[in-house]
């Protein structure tokens, strides 16, 4: 590999007195599935917002595709980097296929939609299992279905049409993308993302469910109070001690009976006396 897709170098961010991030460094290689976990308020979203250019900090440096983030043209960047937020505020009654086609905007010259754009949009809709939804009114879908439509949209965004220059390096940012989905669809979405990594796409995801993180991540970054507490393969970092340090909640770490990854079971020990109230996050959903 010539260079990392994403290089976050000693990033710090303060708001007033509070340090949201201090000296955070994260790299992401082509084809890697990176998952960031941590308590609420640990700085996960702040980190992602910096990585996608929504927040800027004078301290630290962010390189994406081997260049400083600020030096990219917004439109060229949009062809190879997509971001799926936890929820997307769309209140107009688009048809589902039209929403997916919004992802093709950076590829369009003079606002003209090509047959390739439509084909790609259809294909991506099929990949998220919504091929029969093309003409449905977006606003009538359930929250989970809407989220899958947006996943199709971001997939379509970093896809290249037959005539276009192939972008070998591509990046997908997922900000808690599956919170509104049921278990089958959670796995469907993460399977899809995992599949993309085999094509060389780098995936940067924030996840709450530790077991999903354990199953899908190539590498996990644990944030705690704005600092990187641990980084490494799931088996290395998902230990009882580290997880207690990160979440202040006791879990039991076993081996997954079928998969080669840790299995986190909540309530391994009594969780009293630590003043912890937010147990929901650490136990997973």
């Amino acid at each position, binding site marked *: 590999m010539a260079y990392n897709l994403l290089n976050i170098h000693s990033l710090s961010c303060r708001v007033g007195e509070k340090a949201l991030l201090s000296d955070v460094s994260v790299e992401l290689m082509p084809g890697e599935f990176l998952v960031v976990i941590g308590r609420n308020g640990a700085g996960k979203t702040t980190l992602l917002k910096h990585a996608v250019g929504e927040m800027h900090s004078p301290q630290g440096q962010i390189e994406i595709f081997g260049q400083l983030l600020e030096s990219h*043209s*917004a439109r*060229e960047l*949009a062809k190879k980097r997509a971001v799926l*937020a936890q929820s*997307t505020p769309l*209140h*107009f009654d688009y048809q589902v296929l039209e929403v997916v086609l*919004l992802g093709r905007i950076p590829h369009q010259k003079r606002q003209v939609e090509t047959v390739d754009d439509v084909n790609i949009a259809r294909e991506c809709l099929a990949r998220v299992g919504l091929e029969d939804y093309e003409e449905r009114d977006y606003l009538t879908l359930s929250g989970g279905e809407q989220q899958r439509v947006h996943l199709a949209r971001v997939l379509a965004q970093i896809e290249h049409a037959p005539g276009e220059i192939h972008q070998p390096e591509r990046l997908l940012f997922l900000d808690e993308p599956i919170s509104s989905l049921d278990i089958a669809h959670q796995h469907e979405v993460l399977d899809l993302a995992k599949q993309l990594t085999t094509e060389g796409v780098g995936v940067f995801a924030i996840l709450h469910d530790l077991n999903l993180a354990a199953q899908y991540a190539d590498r996990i970054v644990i944030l705690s109070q704005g600092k990187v507490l641990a980084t490494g393969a799931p088996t290395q970092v998902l230990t009882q001690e580290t997880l207690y340090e990160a979440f202040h909640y006791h879990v039991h770490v076993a081996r997954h009976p079928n998969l080669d990854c840790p299995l986190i079971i909540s309530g391994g020990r009594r969780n009293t006396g630590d003043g912890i109230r937010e147990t929901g996050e650490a136990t997973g959903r």
Partner: protein
Amino acid sequence: MPITPLQVISILGGKIGIPPLAAFDSQQEAVLFAIRLPRVLLAVLVGAGLAVSGAALQGLFRNPLADPGLLGISSGASLLVAGTVVLDISPLGIYTPSVAAFIGSTCSTVAIYLLAQKDRRTNVATMLLAGIAINALCSAGTGIFTYLSSDDQLRMLVFWQLGSLGGATWTAVASAAPLILLCVITMPLMANSLNALLLGEANARFLGISVEAIKTLLVVLIALGVGAGVAVAGMIGFVGLVVPHLVRMLAGPSHRILLPASALLGSTLLVLADLLSRTIVAPAELPIGLVTAFVGAPFFLYLLLQSRKPGGI
């Protein structure tokens, strides 16, 4: 003065050397050219400008309840025009009212936008309430000018505030046309950006849209479309609200269709509304702003009721 459709075609065709299909006299020709044609053209222009601006405004606010009249953009324009009339200043000749209106509507649009945006989201309640406040403020300002006006000015101001195409002259058409056409023709070039903006500003940025530049351009074009219309035809409400809605119901929310279709439908509806306003109490004339308000205000209430339902606005 009755003029049949065939005579109209003959008079217009005669100007470019087509032999007449029906006989007409010179008086008919004069009435058509000096009075009716500029009036229809002005209705076409103003209708297109208001409807396109309304559609773009709703895209900018990501909210289908935005309307240039409700948000005080028209009354911002109105305030400055009333000022130039009463103080009798016209440094820019026939363009004075248009430019004054443009400045007024720009200020209102920027003010509303800054007030209604919080944490990069549009707060609908704040947007509408800020609109009420700006409307009240501008109306009070206009009221002061009305109070200071002479009898002639007063009569003119009152009619103009009710909205009227009665003053349609070729001068009015010439002063409004460049500004409104600039708005109506340029706006569809930003259709994709507006579509992306419906996903929220952050997502639009992720799609490679220069959100800040687009927003500035949108505000300027909206102010042009509304301001130029207000300058020549006064306060004509609800066109910017109703027309984009009708188009969305027929053709969906994509701005690539919405913007040009709103221009066409806005023109058509305003020509029809003007027809009503001229004939309903003939030989007197009902101000066209009253006609659009009688249709538009119930429609707005209907939208508000719709928005209470789940999945609504």
